[in-house]
């Protein structure tokens, strides 16, 4: 096929409906040899991996997003059509593994017949052979293969059965792609479509009639169709009164009529009795019990999250503290050592300390997804979400947002309606992500006394309250956006509720591993960079001012008779005030004074706009405490801080509450803004997101401070 081109490695596409077990098969075939990137031009996550066939030839396996048909309604599905109708594209597969759930073959063959009519070399992979024994389902593989004219293989991605046979079949198909070419298409375009095609057949870069038909349907958004061709297509469609939706319905009905008898002849489904899943759903999706169980599950999830994450987090902190101390002890003192210890090691520690929480959260989310519960959650809350302009599927993003807004925003791709998707993206960062946790922890101790009320710790209640505040703010903002934005687009729920299954632990493990890696790579870069910049800004300043500060510190130390550590602390805080960071903080002090903040908090806020988890680290730098993550010591130092204007402690409960509210609402994460830009295709929405959240934060914090002080 590609003999005339530069030899490239063969690309094998993994295609199938959502919930066909496609990703499980991908994981089973590639294991840890997966690469994650983006499909060209869009942000849909592209997973690919190399697999070695029996012959020793390596092929690239690309996991395409799940799609129901060649008539896409979501970004994910569009991508499949985009790549499979573009023979010149890099990802155009040399062969397709079409994955279908054997228990849903009567639905999953729709896309199969469409791709078959595109004349793509295919293997039909019937997944879930493990349920065949359980349910008494019978499949005549030979007959299916004969009638569909493709190789048909039974596998179980869950149990890893049939994979070797599959690799052999792929090798055979790649060796001789023409062997299984279809003799006749499953579907012949109708009269009206034929007229349009007669006009356009020469103009379109199409391999056959069905390919041309799909290009006619989708020319307006397919990236590989040039502008002039789009015009021609549009004119021809108008001339022949080609109605895309009507043609789609006709085609789909005809396809069902064609393959339904084939399925009926080769597959015998077990009787239609209420399955175990349905009995479970009697309770889990019950009108009253359903939402209550959901809330209980979430409550337990976050309890476990905090309980389990504490130990490894302490461990990571300890490692970086020790590392910092020993580096300082070994290396000669100087700015390079300071950069290494206070900038890089402290910054790295600040990133890695979140790994336990992110890992545990994704562990739970992956399990809920694998089990099939997330689809139920979307069903339970769709009605409620609709009132706020969101979609049931937004629930998934809003839950994931409590770990990190970045993957949460990426998970909105399954929402077909642009407005619902946009709203979800816009409000998800208001949910309290794990980066806010250290900030909450340290500030709540100033805001709320350590007392109990009816057996509940007040501080714990405040913590829960902040989470709730974040969710409420997200929902109400969505409501405002809903009233402002208008869209003519179709909105769907139409959600499959797949059978409950025990999770495939390989899939759970791979998800956790990939999410953690993405976090370290993406967020880590930013946080590390900020730590270094911040270290630079707070270590250097105009030389005259720095000299004056040092002299001043020496004078104070002499007057008070400080030596050793205490003297160094005085010197450090004087130097900070004279540094560039100090100048910046002082410059913004008038703006933040109504909120109850001084210039030192100003520096921390400024640094937090890059990433809010920087707050604690910045506080440590500002209050010149050697180890970054020692919250107790930072807390002591903050408690000692006196406001020179009032003579009162800076961190009274009004300031602490004001800061807490600010951190709940403010958009302080550059990585999230970058993801929003990628997902919305421009700077407009991230700019709006940044502005509305920051304005909300500023005025809410001001209100809180003015009321409390």
């Amino acid at each position, binding site marked *: 096929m590609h003999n005339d081109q530069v030899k490239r490695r063969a690309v094998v596409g993994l295609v199938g409906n959502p919930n066909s077990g496609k990703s499980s098969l991908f994981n089973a075939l590639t294991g840890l040899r997966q690469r994650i990137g983006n499909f060209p031009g869009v942000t849909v996550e592209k997973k690919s991996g190399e697999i070695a066939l029996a012959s020793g030839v390596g092929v690239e396996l690309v996991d395409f997003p799940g799609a*129901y*048909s060649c*008539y896409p*309604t979501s970004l994910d599905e569009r991508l499949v059509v985009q790549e499979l109708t573009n023979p010149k594209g890099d990802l155009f597969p040399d062969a397709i593994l079409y994955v279908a759930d054997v*228990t*849903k073959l*009567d*639905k999953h063959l*729709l896309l199969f017949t469409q791709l078959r009519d595109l004349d793509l070399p295919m293997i039909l992979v019937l997944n879930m052979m493990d349920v065949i024994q359980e349910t008494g389902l019978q499949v005549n593989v030979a007959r299916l293969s004969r009638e569909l004219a493709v190789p048909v293989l039974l596998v179980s991605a869950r149990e890893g059965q049939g994979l070797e046979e599959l690799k052999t079949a792929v090798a055979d198909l790649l060796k001789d792609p023409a062997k299984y070419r279809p003799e006749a298409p499953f579907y012949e375009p109708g009269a009206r479509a034929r007229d349009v095609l007669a006009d356009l057949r020469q103009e379109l870069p199409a391999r056959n009639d069905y390919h041309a038909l799909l290009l006619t349907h989708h020319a307006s958004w397919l990236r590989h169709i040039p502008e002039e061709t789009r015009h021609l297509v549009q004119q021809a469609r108008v001339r022949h009164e080609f109605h895309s*939706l*009507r043609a*789609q*319905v006709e085609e*789909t*009905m005809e396809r*069902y009529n064609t393959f339904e008898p084939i399925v009926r002849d080769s597959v015998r*489904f077990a009787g*239609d009795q209420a399955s175990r*899943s*349905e009995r479970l*759903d009697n309770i889990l*999706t*019950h*009108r*009253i019990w*359903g*939402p209550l169980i959901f809330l209980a599950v979430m409550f337990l999830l976050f309890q476990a999250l905090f309980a389990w994450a504490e130990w490894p987090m302490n461990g990571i902190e300890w490692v970086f503290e020790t590392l910092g101390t020993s580096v300082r002890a070994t290396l000669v003192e100087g700015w390079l050592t300071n950069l290494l210890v206070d900038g890089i090691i402290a910054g790295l520690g600040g990133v890695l300390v979140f790994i336990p929480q992110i890992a545990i959260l994704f562990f739970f989310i992956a399990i809920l997804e694998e089990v099939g519960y997330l*689809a139920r959650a*979307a*069903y*339970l*809350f*769709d*009605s*409620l979400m*609709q*009132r706020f302009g969101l979609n*049931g599927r937004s629930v998934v993003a809003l839950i994931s947002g409590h770990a990190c807004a970045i993957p949460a925003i990426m998970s909105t791709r399954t929402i077909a309606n642009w407005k619902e998707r946009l709203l979800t993206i816009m409000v998800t960062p208001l949910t309290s992500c794990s980066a806010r946790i250290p900030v909450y922890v340290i500030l709540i101790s100033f805001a709320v006394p350590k007392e109990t009320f009816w057996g509940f710790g007040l501080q714990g209640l405040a913590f829960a309250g902040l989470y709730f505040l974040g969710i409420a703010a997200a929902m109400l903002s969505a409501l405002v956006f809903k009233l402002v934005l208008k869209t003519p687009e*179709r909105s*769907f*729920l*139409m*959600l*499959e*509720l797949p059978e409950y299954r025990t999770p495939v632990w390989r899939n759970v493990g791979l998800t956790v591993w990939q999410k953690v890696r993405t976090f370290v790579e993406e967020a880590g870069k930013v946080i590390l960079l900020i730590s270094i910049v911040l270290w630079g800004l707070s270590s250097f300043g105009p030389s005259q001012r720095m000299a004056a500060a040092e002299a001043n510190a020496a004078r104070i130390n002499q007057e008070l008779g400080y030596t050793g550590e205490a003297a160094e602390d005085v010197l450090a805080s004087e130097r900070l005030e004279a540094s560039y960071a100090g100048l910046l903080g002082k410059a913004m002090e008038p703006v933040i004074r109504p909120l109850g903040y001084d210039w030192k908090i100003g520096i921390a806020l400024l640094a937090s706009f890059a990433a809010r988890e920087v707050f604690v680290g910045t506080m440590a730098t500002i209050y010149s405490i050697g180890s970054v993550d020692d919250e107790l010591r930072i807390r002591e130092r903050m408690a000692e801080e006196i406001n020179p204007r009032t003579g009162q402690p800076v961190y009274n409960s009004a300031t602490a509450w004001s800061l807490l509210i600010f951190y709940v609402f403010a958009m302080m994460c550059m990585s999230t803004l970058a993801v929003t830009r990628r997902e919305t295709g421009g700077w407009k929405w991230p700019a709006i997101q940044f502005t509305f959240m920051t304005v909300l934060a500023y005025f809410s914090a001001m209100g809180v401070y003015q009321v409390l002080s």
Partner: protein
Amino acid sequence: MPFPRLTAAVHFTAGMSGIIDRFTNEDLAGKLLDIGVRPGSRLRIVRSSPFGSCWYVKIDRHCLALRKQELACIMIK
């Protein structure tokens, strides 16, 4: 309990079932067909969702969640 003659599925309560005859909304029909809801399928309404406007339905052997307006365009005989 069977559905009376040709009615939109949205008018029925939990427990009722019937055979899908046709769709009245082209916008939704394409997508419904894609996910396997098609004329000739047996539709059964299992229950309604907590806050009202969604339904848990069973189409042939598979469970789906559909919104009110999605059910409204499905005609049952």
